């Protein structure tokens, strides 16, 4: 009945299970653990930047570089991707009415690559920044850290390709024959879209990682200018993967909101068709805009215009999602439990982040903001404001179904207020810092630049509020897992509807009969 404990089993049986809810639990817990680890790094960075010129907390620039590198890699590859895969594992088989994922063992293999990749990233603690741009990453980034990072990312990339294959096959081939694809819930559609995107996007990065490695070994010179290579080629290969990857991070969060908003508005979804259309549109458009990361690399004007239009084409599709949410909520009897609060907060910040993105994509403005804190603020507003909000909303929503217990609504409220406030204070301020000209990824800045000092200190206080709110989240998780109120398993949120609930998973012990 309860996903984790349908039949009480020893912990090791869950760890080495291939059932989709068990793998989902592992994914979710791993993702959350890495979220807190990378969050600590983020707080170190922000606290360090509170005091210009004093080298407080982080004593040398190389360590600073290593910290923000691992912070970025962890949040993207060890929190965002595994968490989305975790929720996908829980819900997708139920949504397509199949007993499990299509390839349960492949599923477990894909999960177990995550801890290995994570160990390589964290043990090496490389200093290349998460993008590992050439030529630094080729010529100077010290080994073995950078090599370990390359192998770690390689493993994580293969893991996400394997889980994508699994999702695509599960949704397209294992779907119940009575269920037309257009009626598959939108969360499963979001997972289908990002899985297909991963399969198209990831090979480019996988190739560039191998090229990076052979360049580092001195046997090739793809990106090494002193061997006749071209660092810009790396940028193209990298962003061909990672602009679509932005949507790969984002769409599951939007899909989760599609799960939550109708349910907590106690109203059917406004338009299933426009949701599907917008997902597919974003999935296609995601591949038409990688060049906007590279306007300042000397691209010719026509190419830049093409990429600018490609980028702006994402606006209508994103708008369709927002309007779909608003129209669903309109006139509903909304119950603002924690998942709904985070989902609605996420929509608000999605809109703000998108507005900043429109400015960014206009190439004359991009020349001003490129490489500044504006970009840091923009992308964190997406990652924290939309993606993390959606994921946290889903974590609260799934909590009673996984544990059989209810989280503390009071602590969740504190978490929500702190996270909303903190996110706005840190990342809006970072936009302004960018306009003041502060470059990103710098270890220190002159104390004489008073506007930088003020804005940095405002941002850092915001980060402390944000970090503090996550202490309440962690406390809530730990306390409620152990001693939370027993949840009403038929309707834990008191919504009173006749919707299906995620704990209707099939018998999680089916694999023991092999």
């Amino acid at each position, binding site marked *: *009945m*309860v996903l*984790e*404990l*349908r*039949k*009480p089993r020893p*912990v090791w049986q869950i760890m080495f299970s291939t059932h989709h809810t068990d793998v989902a639990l592992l994914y979710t*817990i791993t993702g959350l*653990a890495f979220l807190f*680890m990378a969050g600590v790094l983020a707080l170190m960075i922000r606290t360090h930047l509170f005091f210009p010129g004093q080298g407080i907390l982080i004593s040398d620039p*190389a360590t600073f570089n*290593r910290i923000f590198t691992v912070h970025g890699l962890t949040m993207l590859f060890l929190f965002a991707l595994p968490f989305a895969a975790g929720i996908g594992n829980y819900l997708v088989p139920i949504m397509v009415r199949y007993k499990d994922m299509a390839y349960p063992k492949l599923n477990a293999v894909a999960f177990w690559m995550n*801890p290995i990749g994570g*160990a390589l990233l*964290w*043990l*090496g*603690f*490389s*200093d290349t920044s998460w993008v590992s741009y050439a030529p630094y990453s*080729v*010529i*100077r*980034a*010290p*080994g*073995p*850290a*950078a*090599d*370990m990072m390359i192998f770690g990312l390689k493993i994580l990339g293969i893991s996400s390709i394997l889980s994508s294959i699994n999702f695509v096959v599960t949704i397209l081939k294992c779907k119940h024959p009575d269920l037309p694809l257009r009626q598959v819930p939108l969360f499963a559609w979001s997972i289908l879209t990002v899985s297909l995107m991963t399969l198209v996007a990831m090979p480019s990065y996988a190739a560039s990682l191998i090229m990076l490695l052979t*360049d*580092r*070994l*001195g*046997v090739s*010179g793809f990106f*090494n200018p*002193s*061997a006749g290579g071209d660092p810009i080629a790396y940028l193209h290969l990298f962003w061909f993967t990672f602009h679509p990857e932005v949507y790969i991070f984002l769409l599951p969060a939007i899909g989760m909101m599609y799960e939550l908003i109708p349910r907590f508005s106690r109203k059917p979804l406004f338009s299933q068709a426009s949701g599907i259309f917008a997902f597919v549109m974003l999935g296609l458009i995601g591949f038409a805009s990688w060049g906007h990361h590279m306007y300042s690399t000397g691209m010719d004007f026509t190419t830049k215009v093409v990429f600018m239009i490609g980028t702006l084409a994402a606006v209508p599709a994103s708008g369709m999602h927002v309007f779909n949410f608003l129209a669903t909520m309109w006139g509903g009897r909304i119950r603002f439990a924690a998942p709904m609060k985070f989902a609605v907060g996420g929509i608000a910040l999605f809109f703000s982040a998108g507005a900043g993105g429109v400015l960014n994509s206009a190439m004359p403005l991009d020349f001003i903001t490129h490489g500044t804190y504006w970009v840091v603020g923009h992308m964190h507003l997406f990652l924290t404001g939309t993606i993390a909000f959606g994921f946290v909303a889903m974590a609260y929503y799934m909590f009673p179904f996984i*544990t*059989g*217990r209810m989280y503390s609504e009071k602590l969740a409220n504190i978490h929500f207020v702190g996270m909303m406030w903190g996110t706005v204070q840190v990342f809006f301020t970072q936009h302004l810092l960018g306009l003041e000209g502060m470059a990103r990824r710098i270890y220190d800045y002159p104390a004489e630049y008073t506007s930088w000092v003020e804005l940095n200190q405002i941002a850092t206080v915001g980060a402390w509020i944000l970090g503090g709110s996550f202490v309440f989240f962690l406390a809530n998780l*730990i306390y409620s*897992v*152990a*001693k939370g109120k*027993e*949840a009403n*398993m*038929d309707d834990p949120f008191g919504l009173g509807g006749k919707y*299906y*609930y995620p704990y*209707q998973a099939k018998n999680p012990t089916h694999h023991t009969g092999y």
Partner: protein
Amino acid sequence: MSHNEHEEPIPRTSPRRLAKMLAIIIGIQVVGAVIFFTHYDYWNSYLPMAGKIQEGLITPGGQPPPPPPPGGKTINVSLKFVESSDFKTYAFNAISGPDNNPEIHANAGDKLVFDVTNGGKSFHAFAVTDSKEGPGPAIEGTTIGTADNPMKPGASGQATFVPSQPGEYYYICAVPGHRELGMEGKIEVAPSGGAEQPSSAEVKPTGNKVEFTLSFVMSSDFKQYAFNALPGQTGHNPDIKVKSGDTVTIHIKNDSKSFHSFGVVVDPDNSSATQQSRVQTIH
């Protein structure tokens, strides 16, 4: 959802299970942290091959770099850290007398090989620096140990220093304070040149133009390759003798069955770029 499910009790998470889960997560993190911090210096410890190639530390094939340019000789120096019994004076080789901190004379391009032993009772670290005071900064590649990770008593090691520029250098103990106590010796580096170095002055063209003809030949079993005639026959690999400043034109013909490419080098075992650049090779 069916109502039958309510017949069995609903299992829920318990503090015990939570404790197990936290023990696993925190255990993995602690083990990871121990591995990370005990090898802290290792993770970011060396340049990638591509960086070493760029720095000239190795060649693209992974071989050590070519020996120093012609005229560079290898000078072996053995040094020992010594301390006076009251630990107030530190020095190399001897506290006083002719052996005290021996001065080293070399030419730019020479290779100085230091064999260093810690004969004292303190920790020391060897380095070559061009700064006139203080414990460094050390010239890259010349250190044995560092102030953070010094040579223990009795330890020994080897370092090489190839001065590319003339000037005054110092070999010192890189542990702060030890140089001031006397662990400092001078290395005088004179400009490269001297008797054995070929003159670097440009040779004026003589106006003489000489022409030669060579052809690539191979034995029928492809085991012997030569110019003009196979080994043992007359005209095999002829010597070409010209005067400095002559313009030499060499006509090449490939009479063999393989592909070949012609070039002129100064010394086949030791090709120096500066010398080669003055030979214009025409295919």
